[in-house]
């Protein structure tokens, strides 16, 4: 029982980390059609910035400062990349993706040449280093910090998207960018905004990832990014709760499989992805979660959808 509690909370912590990365990815992709390969690099750079701060300040104040520095590093990096590189390639989504691919190769190499390829241990403050007893299980405190952080971010992003004017533009842009532009709204500002938001979340994920793994390394962000991609595929692009649910599923699957199937959690995630892809009816661009919800909302909508001609895949 206590093992199960520990596994669940650790899985939730991992899912929280995935959510922080995947939410930015999903927003950027949904709005701009850019699959941001540099997202992992943002995370890595932020994690190293946070590590530098923690190394020199230390303790709880150091961690708070590191959170601030890490998040703003990610934000700044994303804004710079958007302004300097992505912005010039409007209307060429494939080239935008290629640019982020180039960055995803160059930035970790830069980090590696600056701080060497070895993993650096992340100085976790003593207050977060211990464990607490929950339902008989010794749960590391940092897992709980991650879960709390992700819940705060989920609520915050959801409030931003549903309650503010810019959130409205972002949501509308994800739904139908051409129509929003035709209505006279400057979508390019929303692009920068979403990129900055994604970068800030990646930065936050970098710091929290350092807490979770207890170390930072140049290719940490890239390997996390792949799981974030999986999360985005399973969860779809259109709703934050969808991404959150998918992140939790992936995190839990990975932890359970790691323990019960002898260390093959990563493979279990890929199998899960294949199952979801196979179970999902082709021709619909939305996630199973979305489809179920839509059916619940309007039972008659479902058959119409399947009659509509689709992209051509049988």
């Amino acid at each position: 029982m206590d093992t199960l509690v520990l596994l669940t909370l650790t899985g939730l912590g991992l899912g929280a980390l995935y959510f922080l990365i995947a939410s930015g990815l999903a927003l950027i992709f949904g709005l701009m059609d850019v699959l941001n390969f540099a997202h992992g690099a943002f995370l890595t750079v932020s994690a190293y910035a946070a590590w530098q701060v923690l190394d020199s300040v230390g303790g709880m104040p150091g961690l708070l400062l590191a959170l601030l520095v890490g998040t703003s590093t990610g934000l700044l990096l994303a804004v710079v990349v958007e302004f300097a590189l992505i912005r010039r390639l409007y209307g060429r989504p494939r080239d935008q993706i290629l640019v982020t691919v180039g960055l995803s190769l160059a930035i970790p190499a830069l980090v590696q040449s600056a701080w060497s390829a070895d993993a650096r241990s992340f100085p976790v403050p003593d207050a977060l280093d211990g464990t607490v007893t929950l339902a008989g299980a010794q749960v590391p405190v940092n897992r709980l910090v991650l879960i709390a952080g992700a819940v705060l971010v989920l609520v915050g992003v959801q409030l931003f998207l549903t309650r503010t004017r810019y959130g409205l533009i972002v949501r509308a842009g994800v739904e139908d960018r051409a129509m929003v532009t035709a209505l006279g709204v400057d979508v390019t500002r929303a692009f920068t905004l979403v990129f900055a938001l994604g970068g800030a979340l990646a930065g936050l994920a970098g710091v929290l990832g350092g807490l979770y793994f207890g170390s930072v390394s140049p290719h940490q962000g890239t390997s996390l990014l792949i799981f974030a991609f999986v999360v985005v595929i399973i969860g779809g692009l259109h709703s934050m709760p969808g991404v959150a649910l998918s992140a939790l599923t992936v995190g839990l699957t990975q932890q359970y499989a790691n323990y019960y199937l002898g260390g093959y959690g990563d493979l279990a995630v890929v199998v899960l992805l294949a199952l979801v892809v196979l179970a999902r009816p082709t021709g619909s661009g939305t996630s199973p979660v979305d489809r179920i919800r839509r059916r619940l909302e309007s039972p008659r909508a479902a058959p119409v959808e399947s009659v509509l001609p689709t992209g051509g895949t049988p």
Partner: protein
Amino acid sequence: MTVTHLPAPDDTAAPPPPDSGRSGPRWRPYAVPVLVLVVLALLPYSALEIPVLFDGRLNSPGSLQLIALCLVFAGLALGYDLMFGRTGLLSFGHSLYIAGGAYGTQLAMTELGLGLLPAALLTLVLGTLAAVVLGAISLRTLALGGIGFAMVTLAFAQAGAIWIERNPGGLTGGEEGLPLHTAGVPEAFVGVANTVNVYWLALAYLTAVAAVVWSATARPVGKVWQALRDNEQRIAVLGRDPFRHKLGAFVLASALALLGGIVHLLVTAGATPHSSTPEFTLTLLVMVVLGGAGTRWGPVVGGVLFTYLDQRLASWGIGSEPMLILGTLFVLAVYVAPGGLTSIRLHRARRSAARADSRKQEHR
């Protein structure tokens, strides 16, 4: 061994498009590939010294090894372009098949005690079957708009990379990789003294890939691929099955990647876990885009150039991280040469041709 491969481009190289308007002798389109092939095939007989570009003479084992690696990557890039540039499928899982070819052959030799040829054949058959299954699963996600396919192939490749890194049962050697099982390999391909044979093998691989890719894209199926890239709905309306054609391109490209993995195993005398990582696929993508996606020579030029710089930059003392320079170069190339390096040349040629045409008309 090269002699047997010489006629390949003659038989199968793409004929010039009939509407190109150029009226030259019929051998004209084959002249350049044959010339390149002959020069490359005779390269080991040259003791030329090129001071900065190569460390020793051209036919020294070190230089031959470097060129062989460049040729292998040119072939791999050309095979990848069959999906990316010709069919418009953005796959991030190509490394799975390259590593599959290398590790599969190696394991078939060590675990099953097969010789090189049966091991390679077994790997090729099993790997192609796997490509059919995984390709069919991945292509189902195309409904997400191409990106779904990219991410699912990425996930499969990542699974392979994890499996190799975990070193299950001591099979894959984990992070260290596996040294080539020399007992199963014919002696002609083992050792520094036989580098020249490995070089010719790499050249034969590139020739075979070029023959397959260039001839396939010139045939009706290639036209369907190209049409799928440009307008999939129209192909579906015309009664061709997009799914089957895409799967065909995927499986063919994967088979070429498996073959490339086998050659890579022999050229580098071992299987490295790096060849299984998604980053490896990204470098192939960079090569293709750098040279020019969907063009005849672009992937070859990009593959050779990228591999050469990757291997040589450090020895010139420019930065210890070649990927930093190559990644930056690539980002610049997307802006400066959106169609790839070969397109710059083409643009200029086309412009001068147009100028010549207009001048001719003026004379009339």
